């Protein structure tokens, strides 16, 4: 801050400070010093007063001393020689009978930060460690840390380190905690303070004496300790149990961090700790300080990555207050989306609907996106809200809605009809390029359902010369090409004009290249163009799953209680990459390229009509028996399923081994891993994508684990109904697995806990299928579909694991 008249002030202060009349009156002297410090904190350069201030430090007035010391510490580095004069006064003060004066002198002596003065400081610091007043010892302990950081690279004095270790037994808890801090800094290169068993137990016993900050520090340092036995571990955990539910959020968070690091190999204990901590965390979410609320919300998001249902019953706590800042509202919405279930969906949607018209555009757009996210599971209700919002005809809302619709349709193609009918008239309101790109993508891909699509595109093409956004131009080209394939008569002329413009007049190389590419493509013939441009219009791949799988705690435990979860959008990107890698691809630019470049093979295996049915999936298409088509209709009710399943059982017992002509029962085994750890929703979603309907589950990680499902095969010679059961009864074949486990241990890997160990192993899942009428070909094809699904699920699991290990 420029301070006018700074020099004048300094000159005047200098006069006052050296005026003997002022010096003789303590109060006037102090006030003058006060003015100096005030000028200093306002940004005036008062370093010229250094020698006067050195004199002012020889006083009995403690307030004045403090002010002068503060001044000296700020300017010492500019006047190393003059600072030497201060040292004498400071050393004299270190002998003062008043402990407050001693600690003050000692602290400022070590704060001067002048390497040349180190030799004068060491002796008082050593004496300070043995001072009888605790406040002097506190300062002296940290003084050593300051000293070592000042002369980095110098040898560490073993005597001092020993003394500091012995001061861990100091009766004053702050001295103890300061010792931990000082040792941590002095021994930084050796990995910080060494925490052995006696120190751990000493610290744990004394934690009660410390205040909140001391407790946090102790808990942080204890993370380095590894208990030697399970008994010891559980002793420690039970000692810490009370602080896990501490009303002070810092203590609670530090304790949970310690729990997670101690119980890294005991997922069950960690999960129980997460449950326990959810109460205090929720309380912190309602704290009076909004920054604390925000911090707690961010950490709740972390916890929910491992226990998605943790906050389920408390979903109302995440409703936004109308006066809350946008950053809190957005986090709350992210959490609400995760908590949606059948019971609360209408309440949550009502609440989110209210946010869509928020004054803050970011909040409004986040709310719209949140509704779109929920739309993946509850499409009808969400579409109703989203299309209703289009009626507002507001630029930012329409843009967000169109983008959301695009993302929704990519995942849920069954929404396309509703979306198409809502698109009419949007183009008038849309202003920003993101929204227009989304509209163009939708018009290109679903142009056959929007009667006005060619006219909308024509308006865009007429205005292409004044278009500034590169993305919009590229999207316009692709959309026009696609629309040409479905509605050639109306589009041919404008496509010609657009291509002409892009190739002849456009200055941007990307657009020109794309124009040329399409031009040459068209030359190859319409069929080829169709193959390239109309690959997929939605993404039924297994990456997009409703309800996301629980992550192991280890994936986020290291970032718990750090600044990481609070960083802007940190969790958003993680959600995207974690839940659905393809979500990124839903941005139109990549969406155009991705399907073709990644799975060229699938175009060849696809029968030509597959694009129009839109029902086929990747996994089905990649099968050797490409003729197999599965479908879910007619729907089978659970009761009907049960009747048929049991009927077949009884039939089988009566007719023994003999199989009737219209009925087939087979048993098979599929080896796969980690299916059991998947959440039922994941499996269900995966099965649905290949048109297998699951009907009933046992809860995950119970034994025996069963899943019942059915599907219809529509094929030659006749369509059949398949009923099936997946059964995992536990360790079926123990010997080879033991060996494997021993190998793992021998490999020196951390002794994995039983559950995690099982994850990586192949388990044998028994499949029982009942088909009517009999069609062995179809059953074989079906089995391979099923095993593909299960393997895809487990390989995804493996990838996650690999990622964490790397």
């Amino acid at each position, binding site marked *: 801050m420029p301070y006018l008249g700074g020099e004048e002030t300094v000159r005047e202060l200098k006069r006052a400070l050296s005026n003997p009349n002022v010096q003789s009156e303590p109060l006037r002297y102090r006030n003058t010093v006060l003015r100096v410090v005030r000028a200093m904190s306002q940004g005036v350069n008062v370093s010229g007063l250094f020698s006067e201030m050195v004199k002012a430090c020889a006083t009995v007035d403690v307030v004045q001393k403090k002010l002068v010391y503060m001044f000296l510490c700020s300017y010492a580095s500019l006047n190393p020689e003059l600072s030497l004069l201060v040292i004498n006064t400071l050393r004299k003060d270190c002998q003062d009978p008043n402990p407050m004066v001693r600690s003050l002198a000692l602290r400022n002596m070590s704060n001067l930060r002048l390497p040349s003065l180190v030799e004068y400081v060491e002796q008082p610091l050593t004496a300070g460690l043995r001072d009888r007043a605790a406040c002097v010892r506190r300062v002296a302990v940290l003084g050593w840390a300051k000293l070592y950081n000042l002369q980095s690279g110098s040898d560490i004095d073993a005597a001092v380190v020993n003394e500091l270790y012995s001061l861990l037994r100091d009766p004053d808890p702050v001295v103890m905690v300061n010792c931990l801090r000082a040792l941590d800094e002095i021994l930084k290169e050796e990995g910080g303070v060494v925490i052995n068993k006696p120190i751990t137990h000493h610290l744990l016993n004394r934690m009660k004496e410390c205040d909140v900050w001391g407790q946090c520090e102790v808990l942080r340092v204890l993370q380095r300790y590894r208990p030697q036995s399970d008994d010891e571990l559980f002793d420690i955990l039970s000692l810490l149990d009370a602080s896990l539910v501490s009303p002070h959020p810092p203590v609670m968070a530090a304790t949970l961090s310690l729990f997670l690091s101690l119980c890294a190999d005991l997922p069950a204990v960690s999960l129980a700790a997460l449950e326990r901590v959810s109460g205090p965390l929720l309380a912190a979410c309602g704290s009076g300080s909004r920054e604390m609320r925000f911090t707690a919300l961010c950490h709740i998001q972390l916890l929910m990555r491992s226990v998605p249902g943790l906050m389920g019953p408390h979903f109302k706590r995440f409703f936004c207050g109308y006066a809350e800042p946008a950053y809190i509202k957005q986090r709350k919405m992210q959490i609400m989306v995760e908590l949606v279930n059948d019971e609360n969906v209408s309440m949550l949607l009502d*609440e989110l609907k*209210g946010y869509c018209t928020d004054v803050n555009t970011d909040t409004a757009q986040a709310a719209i996106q949140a509704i779109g996210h929920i739309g993946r599971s509850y499409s009808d209700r969400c579409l109703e809200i989203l299309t209703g919002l289009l009626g507002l005809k507001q630029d930012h809302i329409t843009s967000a809605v169109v983008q959301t619709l695009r993302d929704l349709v990519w995942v849920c193609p069954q929404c396309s009809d509703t979306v198409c009918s809502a698109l009419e008239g949007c183009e008038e309101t849309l202003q920003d390029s993101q929204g227009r790109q989304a509209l163009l993508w939708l018009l290109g891909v679903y142009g056959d359902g929007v009667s006005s699509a060619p006219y909308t595109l024509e308006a865009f093409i007429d205005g292409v010369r004044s278009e500034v956004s590169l993305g919009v131009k590229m999207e316009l080209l692709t959309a026009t090409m696609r629309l040409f394939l479905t509605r050639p008569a109306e589009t041919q002329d404008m496509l010609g004009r657009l291509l002409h413009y892009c190739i002849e007049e456009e200055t941007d190389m990307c657009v020109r290249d794309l124009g040329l590419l399409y031009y040459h493509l068209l030359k190859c013939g319409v069929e080829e163009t169709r193959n390239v441009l109309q690959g997929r219009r939605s993404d039924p791949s297994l990456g997009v799953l409703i309800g996301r799988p629980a992550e192991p705690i280890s994936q986020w435990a290291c970032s718990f209680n750090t*600044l990481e979860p609070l960083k802007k959008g940190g969790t958003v990107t993680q959600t995207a990459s974690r839940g659905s890698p393809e979500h990124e691809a839903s941005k139109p630019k990549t969406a155009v390229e991705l399907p073709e470049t990644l799975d060229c093979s699938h175009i060849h295996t696809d029968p030509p009509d597959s694009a129009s049915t839109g029902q086929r999936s990747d996994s089905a298409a990649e099968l050797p028996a490409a003729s197999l088509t599965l479908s879910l209709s007619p729907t089978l009710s659970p009761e009907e399923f049960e009747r048929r399943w049991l009927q077949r059982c009884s039939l089988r017992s009566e007719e023994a081994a003999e199989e009737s002509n219209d009925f087939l029962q087979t048993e098979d085994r599929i080896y796969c891993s980690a299916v059991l750890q998947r959440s039922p929703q994941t499996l269900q979603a995966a099965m649905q994508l290949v048109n297998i309907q699951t009907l009933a589950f046992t809860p995950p990680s119970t034994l025996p684990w069963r899943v019942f499902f059915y599907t219809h095969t529509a094929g030659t010679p006749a369509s059949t109904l398949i009923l099936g059961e997946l059964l995992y009864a536990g360790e079926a074949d123990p010997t080879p697995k033991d060996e494997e486990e021993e190998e793992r241990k021998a490999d020196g890997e951390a002794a994995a806990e039983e559950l995690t160990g099982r994850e990586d192993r192949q388990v044998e899942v028994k499949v029982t299928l009942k088909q009517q009428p009999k069609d062995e070909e179809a059953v074989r094809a079906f089995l391979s579909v099923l095993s593909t699904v299960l393997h895809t699920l487990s390989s995804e699991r493996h990838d996650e694991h690999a990622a964490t290990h790397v």
Partner: protein
Amino acid sequence: MIRQLFILSSKGDPLLFRDFRGETGDDDVVNVFYQKVTALPGDQPPVVMTLRDLHFLHIRQGGLYWVATTSADSSPFTIVEFLNRLAALVKDYCGGLSEKSVQMNFALIYELLDEVLDYGHIQTTSSDMLKNFLQSEAVSSRPFSLFDLSNVGLFGADTQQSKVAPSSAAARPIQASREQGGRSEIFADVVERMSVVVGSNGVLMKADVEGEIRVKCFMPSCSEIRIGLNEELSIGKSQLRGYGAAVRVDRCSFHQGVRLDEFDSHRILRLCPSQGEQTVMQYQLTDDLPTAPPFRLFPTIERDGTGRLILFLKLRCDLPPKSSAVNVCASVPVPKGAVSLSQELSSPDQSAELQSQNRAVVWQIPRLAGGTQLSALFKLDVPGLSSASMLEVGPVGLSFELPKFTATGLQIRFLRLSPVQPAPSQRWVRYVTHSDSYSIRI
């Protein structure tokens, strides 16, 4: 570990700056921070901001930015809590929290900072410990006002006619009690914050109450106080005592200095308060209010033929007749582009205005007694009003203060000092319920 700490005014003037480690280079961190804040739209910068390896964490209190720079692996809970605590300490020692009080007391705050943080490590934040070290005296920033004299009787003697502590009574520096001699006081405040969502059909969708009991002590020597709460207070859902009038909270937690040996039997809290303010007990009540929500709104929204939006609001206050709400402010979101407002309010002390950048009509009612009802008619000119625009007339947000009222019904039966103070001491018990967020859907 905190590297630097500074306090900025809302306009970005540095009020205080302290570098504890002397590690960072020549970066002018204060400027870097302020540039980051001003570069963002709106006035709600994210709590954490990062520049290379410099991490800024800030809170806003009293219209000031309290900023700490730190390393990436430090605990956000600790730093946020510490900054809040520091702001509370400054408030205790300076008697208030404002740009002016910080400016006037900068020497005291520097002194405080020196004791609280050494080399970036938090030493202590207890005012009992700190009072031994702090030497500067607070300069009170309260301007002289004739109203201050109203409590002073003839020849300066204190009149006892006022049984209610003035709201500013507790806003004074704790150390002033030394000079003021016999004026030893203690305040026990029950402060509750309600967050309520009422559905469009009047059904209570959500009702949470967060409450705390704060003790603010200006006693030079006070060994122990005993606070008696309602005897019928029950905690948690399972414990139901008797019928009807039980006062219930879902969970509560206590300051670590509180002794609870008489809590289970007689609901008595015992503690030795330190100078200044401390939160003795915190409690929450979720999804269940013992009484009806304090306000109900009956809105009628119409669109007349000429493209005007007509809002007719009836606001009923369901408090008991002897209580009343003050500073009630209802904000009704209205469609974008509303240009003018004409209003008919039921009494002249109310006011209403159209805030176009917030897109809301704000209706202010200074005082609303329990059991009464107010109505207001707003006519808004909105060019291009369509039926879809009605969607934008969103949930109404109410903010209010309910003095002498607690939503949970929690009361302090008595506040006893032991040993009995030699000098005359004054004990104050105050109740207030604030709206944290009270929204009524339309």
